[in-house]
């Protein structure tokens, strides 16, 4: 190894990288603060109508009020519960079905066109149907969350399984392994990185599906709050819900990132 730690030029290089990183972080924060400041000023100076556009302070006040009467926790909790439930169901059934398709070449060939069509269908079109079929309850909202993510999951995972290096599979057979060994020792461990990246996409998709579902048929949840708020012209509610949805999306993504780090360290 040719790493000299103490060298002056190397230290200068490291400093340069650190300076750049600090600058980027500072500008990011600046944009955020400027945006909030501009928004608040625009409302206070009556450039725009606070009744329609709300404002950071109005959002905070609304949030504080709803925290005080605990109603916000119910809405957040319901949306989170529905999102996580549909996410886990998508991961479980998606992986299971993708494995089934890998196991049976006939089945995968038969079902392929159906999966492609279902995957390219705009899933929000299914939500009204699901509400009619399953009723205006949590079941149909979870189903809406699942419907958005499931087909893509199956297709992507199956493609991942199928693109395993045939020589790696041959290796298992030369060691007298069976198809089950191929599955357990090559296919599954080999596609864990793919599964994680699919999960990162899915958690966002499930949230989208759940909110769509709540738009149409719910009495609780952030999607309900958005629709209801827009109908009664409580736009503070709407904007606050959108901000909370942003934070939920970030938090869920961070959760999967965290799981990925644990996996990478542990394996």
């Amino acid at each position, binding site marked *: 190894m040719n790493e000299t730690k103490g060298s002056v030029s190397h230290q200068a290089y490291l400093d340069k990288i650190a300076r750049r990183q600090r600058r980027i972080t500072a500008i990011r924060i600046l944009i955020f603060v400027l945006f909030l400041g501009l928004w608040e000023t625009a409302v206070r100076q009556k450039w725009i109508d606070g009744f329609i556009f709300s404002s950071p302070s109005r959002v905070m006040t609304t949030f504080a009020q709803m925290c005080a009467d605990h109603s916000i926790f119910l809405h957040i909790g319901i949306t989170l519960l529905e999102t996580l439930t549909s996410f886990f169901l998508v991961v479980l059934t998606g992986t299971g079905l993708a494995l089934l398709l890998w196991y049976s070449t006939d089945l995968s060939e038969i079902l392929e066109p159906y999966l492609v069509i279902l995957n390219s269908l705009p899933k929000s079109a299914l939500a009204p149907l699901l509400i009619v079929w399953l009723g205006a309850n949590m079941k149909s909202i979870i189903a809406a969350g699942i419907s958005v993510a499931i087909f893509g999951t199956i297709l992507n995972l199956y493609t991942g399984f199928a693109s395993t*290096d045939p020589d790696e599979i041959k290796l298992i057979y030369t060691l007298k392994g069976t198809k089950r060994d191929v599955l357990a020792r090559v296919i599954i461990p080999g596609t864990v990185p793919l599964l994680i990246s699919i999960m990162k996409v899915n958690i966002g998709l499930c949230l989208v599906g759940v909110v769509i579902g709540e738009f149409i048929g719910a009495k609780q949840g952030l999607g309900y709050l958005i629709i209801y708020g827009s109908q009664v012209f409580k736009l503070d509610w709407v904007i606050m819900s959108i901000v909370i949805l942003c934070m939920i999306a970030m938090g869920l993504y961070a959760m999967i990132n965290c799981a990925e780090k644990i996996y990478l360290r542990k394996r």
Partner: protein
Amino acid sequence: MPLLELDHVSYSYHSKSGETYALSDISFQVEKGEFIAVTGPSGCGKSTLLSLISGLIAPNEGTIRLNGSSRYRETTNIGYMLQKDHLFEWRSVYRNVVLGLEIQHRLNEETDKHVREMLETYGLSRFADARPSELSGGMRQRAALIRTLALDPELLLLDEPFSALDFQTRLSVCDDVASILEKEKKTALLVTHDLSEAVSMADRVLVLSSRPARLRRILDIRYDKPKMTPLEKRSAPEFQKYFNLLWKELNAHE
């Protein structure tokens, strides 16, 4: 009795566009402890030959016998080394090396000891808990060989195991593999398109024709000075002679 015996073996592939004759009427025998190299024009079916011997596929015609039995796949282990080492990154070096034992549920104190001894002997014990990506190309190939030897195979099939290595590594890995096989007293069948590799490693070289591959010639390789490594053989006087013979044989009918 020869260890391995091929008797009029033929094999053809089927695809939509038709039938491809890969091997035609191949017969030869391999004695215990021999090192055989198989060479021929590219795409002639050399690898198919190894797949047949390993029992991954069955011949259309003819029989393959190991120790006199044609139903050897259930009872005997045949080691098979592929072009790439295919060490799995999600397993440590040790867990890669015991993969075969794990699959056959034979990982016990005794086999574990054997594997650890081999890792020690062949300079990998320090890396037992490392990831494959931390190994050099030569070390990876040695690890793959130990994975194969861990099952104590009667016969080793080597399918161009050095072709993915750079030239310098290839020369030293050839030496390594030759000495390891000599030490473990293994019979080996090496498929290669590298004539110098064949001449420097094998006791006999089988030359196949282009597809459908027939056995064109069997060339015995003898060096006056015993116990030379493949690298030393490359500068021995006989090396050039055998090399030229093989070269002519391969290019005679093209």
